[in-house]
């Protein structure tokens, strides 16, 4: 136990985790005048100078990006995604051997333990949920009703979009509400034609450019923080020295630092919330230094858990007290349950004949988006509930096509210098419905810090498996209708939950403590000064990428928390 005085370790608020939602909690709480301690379990990565691979070229990587055999052993979970373990950005992902987990049923748990968390490597696709996403559970009976509706979150979506900067095109769709957008990225010729054909042949079906948290016309909010426009290098996961996309480092951390109210401490693994049974509330957290194993205690009036969907619940499970004998806020036994993700690895690709004299320039780390159309509006009856969206895009082949061409020699080589044919792919992202049997638990096994190792037990449900057949067929139909050839529909069932790296739902929001862990303001039932605003809070999954919603929920909860604190309610 450290010997520093308790006073020195006391703050107005503690934020556990510095990823996409923790950064937002720190920014909002410090800007509202609170003295905040943000605790990160991993190492520090400084903006720009910490991005060691950002400016490297392909030939600077010994294996030209590929994983070597030793890395495959160390990063055994990352191997499964096929890209997180790559040489260019492996330093941003966790070594799975050092941070083990168990699988009763297989789960891909891809982590980033460092300042900024996965906000440094996220996909940056930023979509609002729609009104029906918040009522779907109530309507079809899967999971429990959300305690909030779209209107509760809408102003916070706008607030977050204006700060992080989202490029996109307004489409006026109820299924994919518009936001505060910077100018959209460009589509290439084949994509433009595809969009217009799909719109005509499929009764107005929308195809839009991906809405992505990249700056295309930075505002003063962003330039004041030193951020600049996206440079179209498509090397995002290595960290962006231009601040072209939103991350904790490029956005919320400098904003929080500007207030003078933030203290950031790194390398401290928070594993428990300290609950005072007499006061009936949490008073602080316990942490272990990941390098020295020294134990620390920190104290505050309010605590935000933003440790990730799994780790926030992992902390709560270890936070047992007389009042919370089964873990913090776990009267419902829902803690750790209802893990959701987006199922993918399904869709179609095809080649395009024509436009041979047309090309593009720049490397756009973004693609097309086709919003959900199943079980929506006048859609026909489906054999599954909810829906999916597609992400995809068209491009011209490069030298890689040589691998499937016969021949070699001078003519072969010169041909590979030329621009290859067009092709296009559409990959589905499907909603999964909450299922209490999809869960993780703490085991008796411990890691090198003596902390419990988790075991996953989850699978895609029957609804998802039915949905996938439609996801594959509809993608193929669209490509066919748009004149593509050599259409290759695919439905790869091998990837396990977690593959989308959109894991969520282990401490869901709800309307009562018998069925949920958090209330409508993300407060833990029975510990109202503890807020959980990361993916753990989600009561359903929608089919759109989730980070924008985590950020909006966080900003909303922080606003509520500070108001309650001022009213002396916490």
């Amino acid at each position, binding site marked *: 136990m450290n010997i520093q005085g308790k006073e020195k370790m006391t703050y107005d608020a503690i934020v556990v985790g510095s990823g996409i939602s923790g950064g937002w909690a720190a920014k909002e709480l410090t800007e509202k005048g609170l003295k905040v301690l943000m605790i990160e379990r991993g190492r520090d990565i400084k903006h720009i100078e910490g991005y060691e691979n950002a400016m490297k070229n392909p*030939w600077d990587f010994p294996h030209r990006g590929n*994983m070597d055999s030793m890395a495959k052993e160390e990063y055994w979970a990352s191997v499964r995604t096929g890209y997180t373990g790559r040489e260019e950005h492996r330093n941003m992902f966790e070594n799975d051997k050092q941070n083990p987990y168990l699988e009763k049923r297989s789960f891909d748990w891809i982590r980033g333990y460092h300042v900024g968390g996965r906000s440094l490597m996220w996909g940056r696709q930023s979509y609002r949920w729609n009104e029906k996403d918040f009522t779907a559970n109530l309507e079809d009976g899967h999971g429990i009703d959300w305690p909030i509706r779209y209107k509760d979150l809408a102003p916070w979506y706008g607030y977050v979009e204006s700060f992080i900067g989202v490029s996109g095109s307004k489409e006026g769709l109820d299924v994919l509400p518009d936001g505060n957008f910077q100018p959209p990225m460009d589509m290439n010729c084949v994509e433009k034609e595809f969009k217009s054909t799909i719109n005509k042949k499929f009764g107005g079906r929308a195809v839009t450019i991906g809405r992505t948290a990249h700056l295309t016309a930075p505002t003063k909010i962003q330039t004041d923080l030193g951020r600049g426009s996206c440079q*179209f290098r498509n090397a995002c996961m290595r960290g962006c020295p231009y601040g072209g996309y939103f991350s904790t480092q490029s956005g919320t951390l400098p904003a929080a630092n500007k207030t003078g109210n933030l203290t950031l401490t790194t390398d401290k693994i928070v594993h428990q919330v300290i609950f005072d049974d007499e006061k009936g509330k949490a008073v602080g957290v316990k942490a272990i230094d990941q390098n020295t194993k020294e134990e620390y205690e920190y104290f505050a009036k309010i605590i935000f858990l933003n440790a990730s969907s799994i780790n926030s619940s992992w902390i709560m499970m270890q936070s047992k007290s007389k009042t919370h004998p089964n873990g913090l806020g776990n009267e419902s036994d829902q803690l750790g349950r209802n893990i959701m993700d987006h199922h993918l690895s399904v869709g179609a690709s095809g080649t395009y004949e024509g436009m041979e004299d047309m090309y593009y320039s720049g490397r756009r780390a973004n693609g097309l988006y086709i919003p959900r159309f199943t079980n929506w509006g006048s859609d026909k009856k489906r054999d599954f509930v909810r829906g999916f969206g597609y992400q995809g895009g068209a491009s011209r082949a490069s030298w890689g096509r040589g691998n499937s061409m016969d021949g070699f020699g001078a003519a072969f080589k010169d041909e590979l210098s030329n621009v290859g044919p067009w092709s296009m792919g559409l990959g589905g992202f499907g909603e999964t419905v909450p299922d209490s049997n999809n869960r993780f638990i703490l085991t008796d096994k411990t890691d090198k810090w003596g902390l419990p190792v988790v075991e996953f037990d989850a699978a895609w449900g029957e609804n998802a498996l039915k949905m996938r057949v439609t996801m594959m067929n509809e993608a193929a139909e669209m490509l066919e209708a748009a004149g593509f050839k050599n259409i290759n529909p695919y439905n790869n069932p091998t990837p396990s939950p977690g593959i989308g790296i959109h894991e969520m739902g282990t401490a869901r929001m709800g309307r009562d403590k018998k069925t949920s862990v958090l209330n409508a303001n993300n407060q833990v039932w029975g510990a109202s000064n503890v807020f959980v605003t990361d993916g753990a809070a989600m009561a359903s999954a929608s089919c759109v990428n989730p980070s924008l919603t985590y950020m909006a929920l966080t900003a909303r909860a922080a606003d509520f928390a500070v108001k309650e604190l001022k009213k002396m309610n916490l």
Partner: protein
Amino acid sequence: MNRRDAMQRVAFLMGGALSAPTMIAMLEGCKSNTATEAATSFALSTDYKTLVAEIAEIILPKTATPGAKDAGVGPFIEMMLKDCYSATQQAHFAKGLDDLEGSSKKVNGGKKFLESTPAEQTALLKTFEAMSNEEAKKNAEAKKIVDAETGLTKDTKGKTEAPPTPFFKLMKELTLLGYFTSEVGAKQALVHVDVPGSYVGCIKMTPGQKAWALS
């Protein structure tokens, strides 16, 4: 993130650098210790180092632009085999080199591959390419059965060890990877732009325009 079929996604991210079977082979985690063994014990003989570098040069010869040798593809292939592939794949590749020498002596009057004429070398490599295609086809058929209705792949992965990538196929893939991601390959055979600064979706191509090195 750019997500999709895991394999397709990798193919996309890598610009289609490696074939699906090769990627599957590379993605399948090695069992304990085998990685260490494979990574420390593999080496090509001096003769085979030369042979690999020469085959690479035949695949991508020096023309108006640098060739495979200029890009250091020979040593690159040996390093990749050592660091990134299983002992089974390494042995399969080495056997491919043995077979090539054996066939060369047989069909070219006792001459080693590098003692043969360019025409003889080309003819032999064409034979080996055809053999590789045949082997790859068999591997693919053995590996998966696709349900026509659902499109579900009944993958046999886990039940049987994935077959190694055929010799010539891997030789060619690693040659292409080593060359086009090298500095001379990217800058001279292709067009390399460090910081594009913008994305312009529709541009009329100029005559003889080369492909971008990165996508």
